[in-house]
């Protein structure tokens, strides 16, 4: 009976340790983002047409001082696929497993010169523009095949985990052949 209680105590302690590790890892992973003031990526989600300009803005009020080596904005087109296939498990029994794969089929990035020392209370306001490629694919979503357009912001932070935020855009099955009203004016 005592042995059983000791075993239960050991398992409990192991679970507590594991939970503490996960919380610590999450806390560390979010450390730079907290210091930077939980940056928001402001991008209209669309729908966009191919050939449209995508305006991206990163705004945040810095919470604690930190040094950022570089900032990078990126616009990417990603394909994601899923498939099922027959396999043999560790016991030699036939099994069916689901697998998936992702590919970046188009990528464009814009770096903001660095490094920069950010002070507490400083407002960080960065803006870039991207143009959606006229020959690119529109957004596509099906159970096993998807095409997505995503805007990323990445900050390489000294002595801390990097900060990354992103937004998914919707690109409709349309192509811009004339300049939008905002550009004609």
């Amino acid at each position: 009976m005592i042995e059983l209680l000791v075993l239960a105590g050991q398992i409990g302690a192991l679970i507590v340790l594991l939970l503490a590790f996960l919380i610590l890892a999450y806390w560390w992973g979010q450390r730079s983002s907290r210091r930077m003031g939980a940056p928001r990526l402001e991008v209209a989600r669309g729908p966009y047409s191919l050939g449209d300009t995508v305006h991206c803005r990163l705004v945040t009020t810095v919470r604690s001082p930190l040094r950022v080596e570089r900032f990078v904005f990126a616009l990417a087109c990603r394909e994601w696929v899923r498939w099922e296939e027959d396999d043999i498990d560790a016991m030699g029994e036939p099994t069916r497993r689901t697998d998936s794969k992702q590919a970046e089929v188009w990528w464009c990035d814009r770096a903001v010169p660095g490094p920069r020392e950010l002070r507490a209370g400083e407002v960080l306001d960065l803006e870039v523009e991207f143009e959606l490629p006229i020959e690119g694919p529109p957004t596509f979503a099906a159970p096993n095949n998807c095409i997505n357009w995503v805007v990323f912001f990445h900050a390489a932070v000294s002595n801390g985990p990097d900060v990354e935020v992103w937004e998914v855009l919707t690109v409709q099955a349309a192509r811009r052949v004339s300049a939008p009203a905002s550009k004609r004016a």
Partner: protein
Amino acid sequence: MSCEIEVTLEPAGPVAAGTEVRVLVKAISTEPARCRYVRCAAGWTTSGRGDPDSDHPFKKRVPGEEMQPAVPLEREFRFTVPESGPVTYRGLRFSRGSLINIDWSIRVQLDGSWPTDPEQTVPLVVQPRSI
């Protein structure tokens, strides 16, 4: 006993998403036959690394007729390609690492007294509409 089916699309393509397409069907049987229905389905399917997805936003059947050799059976269907697409996508033409293709096709099938129902499939290229 066989039957030849000729399918003509107007416009032939490429067509923009949102365009109405006419499907003209002309079938000629080598022997007398009874055609109960003429079916037409327009849809897209994916191919590539993932399991295929597909959808047929247009499916219709119209009555057939008694067919005589050398007398063509003619039918017409009309459907509109959805504005939302999807559009035809040959992934590898866009990027070497692509995993996906999307293709549209029109399938016409005759339902009748033949041992195997004759059918014909033609491709349709759908591109983004211009704005």
